[in-house]
């Protein structure tokens, strides 16, 4: 046995010696010498440039401060300790006073402080790139100390540094956030994570189509939060569902954060271009949208396993439906945003109004769902849509020639719960009540008064306005459209019509259907009726 072992050891040694043969190492060392020479020459050239560079009347105090800050950040990069963090924080405080007037350095300092705070409070959560991001940011701050600072530190460089800092700041992750701390917990300063407008302007003009698409996206994110919250609460209360709770909690927090981020950006940093239309997508926004899409995709990946689990387990349909809806909406939104990133919001633009023509009133709705109804394109106010889906196979025959749609016909399976499928007031109804409710099926606004039937359209929308609900059968799948400010709105003068007005898209007049008029007291009742159960 000893002989075999010795022989084997010999073979190992031989193989390892062969693998790391000295010739290769020699070659490497020669290469290193050449690199060293290059480095030396480069350093020499840089030194000469530095000497020849004319020095402006920089504020000596700021420069000294910068040097101190640079040293402190370098020390921090060397070793992350509480003492080093405190030193950098102290110097940043002094820097903050130096840059009271500038918005960009202030934002940068805010982010640096936020990262330092995380590093001190939850070192295990801080990203490894943190010290490097701080170093980069401190260099840019240093540039502000030099003459011609604002030109030197361009918006792109600033944005890159800020993005680096943001990447290093960890996302909140619910329960998993509790980590060892170097000092008593102190909440990091809150600040909006808004992208910096190029050129430091107060707000950047973006195309109307893009702006309204983003606003619509905000509304959908809001709806998503509303879907997630009750399920998340249920998981929180139920023992054994902690894993699912963590998933939904993380997704909701991500969505909330994104909503906050873009809500702020839309409010403060971007505005709908007054002249309308041919504005390219700003690079900073494109970059930020890309990262937003990847966050939404991450959320989809998180929800998917839970959806599959509930989909495969019998009796879990109630939990499957909201997960499916969350996933579908997230996917839809990430597709929409990807299209925006590719500049496809241009399709929403129209030609500017001809000079001299009086501008009509703006459309009262921010986003619409358009579909083929009665052979023509009709738009529905998205805020009035309580349900969007298709006719279920088993209900198709039962719905033939019906004037009302019992809501229970929207169930895929007898055990499917309706409550989670609706938004707005219908979602507040009890399951028992929803099972008994039926809503009138609306005729299309075309010239022929033919009762709409499932054979004419596979897609259903349930509309609601105050306490009035109605269903429509559509021939095509509804598509979301964000309303551009440039589209002319012509209110309808017809009474008791479901057409609230027409949108003039330049070459096309699209009727917008709502229940607003028919829901008024003067209008004929289209109230949901309770059907006697057979």
């Amino acid at each position, binding site marked *: 046995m000893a002989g075999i072992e010795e022989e084997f050891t010999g073979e190992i040694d031989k193989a390892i010696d062969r*693998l*790391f043969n000295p010739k290769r*190492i020699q070659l490497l060392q020669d290469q290193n010498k050449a690199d060293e020479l290059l480095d030396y020459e480069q350093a020499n050239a840089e030194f000469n440039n530095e000497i020849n560079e004319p020095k402006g009347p920089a504020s000596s105090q700021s420069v000294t401060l910068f040097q101190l800050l640079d040293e402190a950040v370098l020390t921090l990069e060397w*070793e*992350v300790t509480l003492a080093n963090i405190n030193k950098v924080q102290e110097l940043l405080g002094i820097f903050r006073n130096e840059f009271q007037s500038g918005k960009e350095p202030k934002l940068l300092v805010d982010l640096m402080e936020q990262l330092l705070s995380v590093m001190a409070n939850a070192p295990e959560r801080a990203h490894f790139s943190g010290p490097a991001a701080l170093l980069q940011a401190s260099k840019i701050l240093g540039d502000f100390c030099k003459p011609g600072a604002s030109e030197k530190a361009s918006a792109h460089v600033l944005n890159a540094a800020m993005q680096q800092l943001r990447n290093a700041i960890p996302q909140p992750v619910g329960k998993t956030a509790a980590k060892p701390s170097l000092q008593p917990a102190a909440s990091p300063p809150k600040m909006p994570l808004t992208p910096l407008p190029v050129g430091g302007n107060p707000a950047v003009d973006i195309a109307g189509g893009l702006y309204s698409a983003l606003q619509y996206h905000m509304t959908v994110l809001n709806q998503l939060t509303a879907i997630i919250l009750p399920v998340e609460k249920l998981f929180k209360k139920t023992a054994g569902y902690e894993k699912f709770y963590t998933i939904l909690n993380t997704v909701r927090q991500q969505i909330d954060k994104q909503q906050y981020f873009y809500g702020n950006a839309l409010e403060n940093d971007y505005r709908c271009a007054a002249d309308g239309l041919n504005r390219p997508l700003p690079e900073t926004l494109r970059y930020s949208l890309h990262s937003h899409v990847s966050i939404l995709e991450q959320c989809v990946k998180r929800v998917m396993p839970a959806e599959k689990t509930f989909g495969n387990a019998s009796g879990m349909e109630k939990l499957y439906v909201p997960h499916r809806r969350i996933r579908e909406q997230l996917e839809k939104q990430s597709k929409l945003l990807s299209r925006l990133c590719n500049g496809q919001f241009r399709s929403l633009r129209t030609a500017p109004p001809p000079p001299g023509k009086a501008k009509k009133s703006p459309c009262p709705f921010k986003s619409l769902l358009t579909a083929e109804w009665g052979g023509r394109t009709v738009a529905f106010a998205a805020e009035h849509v309580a349900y969007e889906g298709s006719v279920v196979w088993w209900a198709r025959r039962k719905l033939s020639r019906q004037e009302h749609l019992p809501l229970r016909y929207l169930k895929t399976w007898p055990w499917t719960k309706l409550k989670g499928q609706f938004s707005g007031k219908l979602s507040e109804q009890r399951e028992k009540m929803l099972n008994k409710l039926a809503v009138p099926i609306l005729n299309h606004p075309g010239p022929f008064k033919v009762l709409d039937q499932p054979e004419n359209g596979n897609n259903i929308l349930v509309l609601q306005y105050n306490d009035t609900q109605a269903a429509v059968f559509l021939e095509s799948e509804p598509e979301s459209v964000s309303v551009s400010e440039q589209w002319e709105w012509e209110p309808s003068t017809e009474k008791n019509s479901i057409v609230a007005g027409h949108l003039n898209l330049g070459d096309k007049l699209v009727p917008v259907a709502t229940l607003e008029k028919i829901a008024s007291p003067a209008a004929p009742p289209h109230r949901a009726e309770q059907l006697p159960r057979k």
Partner: protein
Amino acid sequence: MAFIDLIKKEVHCKIVYYGPGRSGKTTNLLTIYSAMDTAVRGKMLTIETKGDRTLFFDFLPLNLGKIRGFNIRIQLYTVPGQVMYAATRRLVLKGADGVVFVADPLVIRREKNIESFACLKRNLNFYNLQLEETPIILQYNKQDLLSSPTPTLTIAQMEEDLNQHLKLKSFAAVSTKGIGVFESLKEISKQTVRHVATRHLLTDHF
């Protein structure tokens, strides 16, 4: 613990470069990566976890070739050395078959070396491994600093701090120039493969 695939006849040994922050662990790996033939080395990877927290460590697979029909592969890992990344360090050390402890000769880093070595011992114990039974070598890096005005420790001083009782094999190195890097790697590879073979392979399959 080495990964052994008896059907494919493959053995994967894990070697971890351990040491205080800034001691030159990643430089060791980069030097090896740039010097090795693409036929024997895989891609150097940065691995990201699925969760929100991102853990990074360097990973370099090397193929040793066939010994007695077994394809021997070595996977080199580094741990983040800084104090704040203790959890990650422990995680990377899981399943290690061999360790290269990279020490820093700067006088101001003396305590850090001792602290990090003690931490290595603790982390190995966490995985039921003993410092005395695991293949470990010491690498005294940055030896080029000895001639600079920066106060540095001599090899004897570092031996006294870290190797007084264990009497591990040690190597002087300048990882930025590739000096001592391959010597260390050779030694730890031999020790590790021998260790794995003796414990898991030799008796049963060879």
